[in-house]
């Protein structure tokens, strides 16, 4: 039995949740892909119902490919059915006997690609140029990547290399920052802002170069055995820090959800649950400081009206929207919740040519909200949500932690 088959065979907990399905249809009303496309049969049928009805491995639900793993169904469900995880497990099973496309291989392995790029002199600018040329020549499109989109550009310096040059005040209080691929390779300023925020709160920020990609892009494209390898590595690292009493904090909500919840839902290993207790989302962590009266609230005043798009993968962490509350404390800041549902990007989903229209259709509500809102800045914790906001909303969004860093002023 391969590692994966074993993993799935033994993964009864998520599977068992299917038995709790009451066929109430709540998940159908909440599924953004179902709203955008009639090709998708929807969470109830594709998830729990199919799970109970299938009799062999060949019994494939064709429309499963449409699920974006946004997890709106899980949040809508009154009975705790882990619909999206069921879908991802089934997708992985499908790819055990079916080949992956070149496109999926590329979208799933961004980390591998980035490593290659970073190992070459002028790698980032060459790669960016290459992507521009590739796009104009229609090369991406030819392998099934949405030609309408720009591939996210590599930052000239990755976060980890910028981090080396940040001079921090050392402190007894430490946290380990988990940047994740997107912040590290494409949006390092978020990481820099986070370090500043933690320093202002008396924390010294560490990084751990042995962490790898959380595996989210692998899970959604059906490379579950590779995702499991990543999980084992990351969980071991989280343990390592846990033993020293140092929490691991992430700014990207898909990474934090993967480390905190999805590993365990997918692979069901007790260590994953225990390690997860040492992982925090950035604003979750800051809110906990606030609860203890330890949040530094010496904010300068800023003039911003913010429109906050709350990522699906933040909603699924079950602690509300503390960023709205904390940023609301900054003098001169007004925070408005966009409340426009899923943005439609869902990690690499929106990059697939055959899902591009669905992705943009899902995003319509948010785009319209952005167009009609009086806000001057859009904020969102998730990197791929920000890409979608840029692409469809035609504005330059930022991460909420960047606003907070700004409020702490220079120095």
């Amino acid at each position, binding site marked *: 039995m391969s590692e994966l088959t074993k993993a799935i065979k033994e993964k009864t907990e998520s599977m068992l949740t299917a038995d709790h399905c009451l066929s109430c*249809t709540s998940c159908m009303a909440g599924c953004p892909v179902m709203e955008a496309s*009639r090709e998708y049969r929807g969470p109830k049928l594709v998830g729990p119902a199919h799970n109970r009805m299938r009799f062999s491995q060949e019994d494939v639900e064709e429309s499963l490919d449409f699920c974006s793993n946004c997890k709106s169904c899980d949040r809508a469900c009154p009975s705790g059915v882990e619909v999206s995880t069921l879908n991802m497990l089934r997708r992985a099973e499908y790819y055990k006997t079916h080949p992956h496309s070149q496109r999926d291989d590329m979208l799933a392995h961004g980390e591998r690609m980035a490593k290659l790029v970073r190992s070459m002199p002028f790698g980032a600018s060459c790669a960016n140029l290459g992507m521009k040329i590739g796009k104009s020549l229609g090369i991406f499109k030819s392998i099934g990547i949405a030609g309408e989109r720009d591939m996210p550009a590599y930052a000239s310096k990755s976060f980890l290399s910028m981090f080396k040059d940040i001079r921090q005040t050392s402190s007894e209080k430490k946290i380990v920052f988990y940047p994740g691929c997107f912040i590290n390779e494409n949006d390092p300023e978020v990481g820099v802002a986070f370090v500043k925020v933690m320093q202002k709160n008396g924390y010294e920020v560490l990084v751990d170069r042995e962490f790898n990609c959380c595996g989210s892009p692998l899970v959604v494209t059906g490379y579950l055995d590779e995702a499991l390898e990543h999980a084992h590595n990351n969980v071991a690292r989280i343990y390592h820090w846990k033993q020293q009493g140092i929490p691991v904090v992430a700014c990207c909500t898909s990474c934090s959800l993967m480390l*905190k*919840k999805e590993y365990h839902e997918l692979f069901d290993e007790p260590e994953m649950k225990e390690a997860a*207790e040492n992982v925090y989302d950035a604003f979750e962590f800051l809110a906990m400081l606030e*609860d203890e009266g330890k949040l530094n609230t010496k904010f300068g005043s800023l003039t911003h009206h913010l429109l906050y798009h709350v990522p699906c993968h933040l909603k*699924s962490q*079950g602690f509300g929207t503390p960023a709205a509350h904390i940023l609301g404390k900054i003098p001169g800041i007004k925070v408005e919740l966009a409340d426009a549902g899923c943005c439609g990007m869902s990690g690499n989903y929106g990059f697939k040519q055959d899902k591009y229209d669905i992705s943009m259709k899902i995003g319509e509500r948010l785009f319209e909200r952005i167009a009609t809102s009086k806000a001057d800045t859009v904020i969102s914790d998730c990197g791929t949500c920000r890409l979608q906001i840029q692409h469809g909303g035609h504005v330059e969004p930022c991460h909420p932690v960047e606003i907070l860093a700004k409020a702490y002023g220079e120095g």
Partner: protein
Amino acid sequence: MKHSDTIVIGSGLAGLMAALTSARRGKKVTLLTMGSGSLSLNSGVIDVLGFDENHAFVESPRKGIETLPKDHPYKKIGMDMLEKSVEAFLAFTKEYHFPYRGSLDKQIMVPTAVGTLKPTCLAPHSMDGTGFKGCSKVIIVAVEGLKDFYGDIIKENIRPLLGEDLVYEIVTIDTGLTGGRDITTLDVARWLDHDKGMTTLSEALKPYAKGSETVFLLPQILGTSGHAGALALRGKLESEVIETTCLPPSVNGLRLQKIFYEALRDSGVDIIEDTKVLRAVRKGAKCTAVVAQAAAREKTYEAEKFILATGGFYSGGITMREFEHPKEAIFDLPVWFVPGEENWSNEQLFADKPQGFAMTGIRTDENLLPLDGNGKRVYDNVYVVGRNLGGYDFCFEHSGNGVALASAYKAAMM
């Protein structure tokens, strides 16, 4: 630890109403939810009391309530609070562009998806069967590919109810929403949210519209935003348009849910979704906090006051692992039930007597504070509302949303 004035647990009608009413009183409210709540599953009309204990039709909910036994939730809530809750609800729906109609004095008859009429107390204009009055022709509008709405059955059933002398005609609309999975009323409603859909529909129906002579009877498809869709179509056709109830997901329930969430945001309610409340922290006669499950860890939420709106058996607010041992899991409140297996249920599901099991729930005093078997208060600051309450069979008497609304309002005002 987060501190609020009031914590509401649950996002069905009772929870949403309790949170909104509390916030509008100036309280700092946190709403804790798991799942999207019951409104997508029920038609969002407010049944106050449709049938009395003997299953006789109740003409006036106000009068019907007088005849209820003293342990019925309405008796604890009191007529005054029921009236005020109805007033508050009507005002709120009007403010958010989805005005409901009705009063406690008279039922509104709402057409169902099989063509019968069911009594309710409050309903949006688009579901108010009063609109059939004075018409001479009913156009039943079916939608190509939409299951669970059969023109023929509706026609057959509604004819004796509205009058044999009226003309009935069935028109089937082609929405172009074909290919792929079966469509639902929600798909059609979303299509009608856009001008293109609305124009297609109104053009198709226009030839049949003869002013006040005609009434169009449609499935629940007129848009997902308040009464905008119904208003638009009524305007274009210059005839009355009426929607039936439907199977879930319920478009009308979702419309109501939408304006509740808008109003909650506008009144500054902090909504924490996808979190299951696990247990309460108790100090003497008071609850000081509840502990809820978030990803990877528990979170504690403190407050002065708690409103329990987690629902009954169906939504897991009350559970029963062992027969005759129903439980309320968060506060471990005593749950009242009809003892004796023989009284538990009637042979027929839709019988002319309330079902014993359906009466299961928490007993409270006049303040909606929970009582134990000896009539002693269990908590001084935990209020029980909606389907968590015992002593009524909402299905039998058609009182579900009414009890939810009124108990939520009262609990919020205490």
